């Protein structure tokens, strides 16, 4: 466990927790401005969370521990990812966990916890959300792993630190067809996993069309705060991952205060820009019919497979 790793392991989760609601606020603000609105301000999600923490906790009748612990698991999985993935520093606090597969599986575990909570309520909506979420998760998995495959093959490792370092040392790789194809596939995956348009509509008010939201309809107060925080964190984690897999520049490679500061700033800027672009892009697309989503995901799988093929034949 290196000093840099420890610094990263402390700075990153703090940054992600503090910054994620702001990222969501920023994305809402971008959308509001494009719609001609003034918007509630970047800090509004933090105000929402603060208020939710002050509210009453409610246990819906008939729910079990699964319902109560799911928000904790959801936040905890994301928190572990925030600690181990090289966001600010190239070295990981817990290197044997900073594996792409492990990180992906951890994020999936969070989604599973929430899906089980949705089923645990025994409501039609909870089950519906869980079923949709799991269908999407099952179909996202191939794209995700094949895209990871494409990225790892050139490095010969799925260790995130190794991938990031290798890109730092050989920047030319980023503009290779492999990277570009894998990037597009990963973007589709991120859109699907974080429930953005065109897969899910984060601001829908219609129970019957919801995916993520349908599972959390029964959560109130602090539990809801955790769920909201976790979904914001997942969004930043995914965007951070995307940023550092393809453009790791700025990340701290040594444990000096200046390097870490630059690393933090670089991450904030990168994730902010990606979030802004994602929010702006969302304005221009509509939500797909539920059973067109698999077609989108199949298309992205194909891109990922192409990326692997390219990595072999162009290597």
């Amino acid at each position, binding site marked *: 466990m290196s000093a840099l790793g420890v610094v990263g392991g402390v700075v990153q989760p703090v940054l992600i927790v503090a910054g994620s609601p702001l990222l969501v606020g920023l994305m809402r603000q971008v959308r509001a401005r494009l719609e001609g609105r*003034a*918007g509630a301000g970047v800090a509004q999600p933090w105000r929402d969370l603060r208020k939710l923490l002050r509210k009453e906790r409610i246990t819906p009748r008939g729910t079990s521990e699964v319902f109560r612990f799911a928000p904790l698991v959801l936040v905890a999985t994301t928190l572990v990812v925030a600690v181990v993935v090289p966001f600010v520093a190239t070295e990981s606090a817990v290197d044997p966990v900073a594996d792409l597969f492990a990180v992906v599986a951890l994020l999936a575990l969070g989604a599973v916890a929430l899906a089980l909570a949705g089923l645990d309520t025994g409501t039609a909506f909870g089950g519906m959300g869980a079923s949709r979420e799991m269908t999407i998760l099952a179909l996202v998995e191939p794209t995700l792993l094949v895209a990871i495959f494409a990225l790892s093959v050139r490095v010969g490792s799925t260790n995130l630190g190794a991938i990031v370092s290798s890109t730092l040392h050989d920047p030319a790789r980023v503009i290779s067809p492999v990277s570009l194809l894998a990037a597009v596939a990963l973007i589709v995956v991120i859109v699907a996993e974080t429930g953005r348009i065109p897969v899910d509509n984060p601001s829908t008010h219609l129970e019957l069309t*919801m995916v993520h939201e349908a599972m959390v309809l029964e959560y*109130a107060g602090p539990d809801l705060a955790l769920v909201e925080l976790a979904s914001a964190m997942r969004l930043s984690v995914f965007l951070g991952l995307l940023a550092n897999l393809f453009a790791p520049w700025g990340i701290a490679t040594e444990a000096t205060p200046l390097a870490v500061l630059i690393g933090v700033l670089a991450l904030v800027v990168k994730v902010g820009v990606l979030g802004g672009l994602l929010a702006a892009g969302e304005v*221009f697309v509509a939500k797909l019919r539920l059973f067109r989503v698999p077609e989108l995901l199949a298309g992205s799988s194909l891109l990922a497979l192409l990326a692997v093929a390219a990595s072999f034949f162009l290597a």
Partner: protein
Amino acid sequence: MLSLWRKIRRTGRVAEPPPPLPEGERPERAALLGGSVQIRHVDAGSCNGCEIEIGSAFGPVHDGERYGARLVASPRHADALLVTGVVTRNMAEPLRRTFDAVPAPKLVVAVGDCARNCGVFAGAYGVAGAVRDVVPVDVEIHGCPPRPEAIVEGLRKLTGR
């Protein structure tokens, strides 16, 4: 895509400058919410006129969201109920249940004259009463239907922004 972008650019900002913060007292519990008020709308028997103006209040011109108020899908996520219309005999229980589903601290806003005092529907056989007769009301908004400005003013009493 380009044409939409042109439309967005040409239209520019639609939201009108915010009026000054309304005078008058705020419900005590509203201060606990700290500038974030999630709202669940309940139509307890309105003619849907008030819904039109609530829609306007949250439309881009009046932009109720900029003051920290937001419509949400579930009463579990809500801090305030926005109740419109007289409460019909069929909606009294659903309204009570919705109120019960909201976690404390919670507020109720009665929107429109029907919600306040049954309006023109007073005395109809299907009417159980005004909102106050079924759940406690914290803020009332006058009008039939209230103008969006009045609704925004009522919301700002909750958010304090």
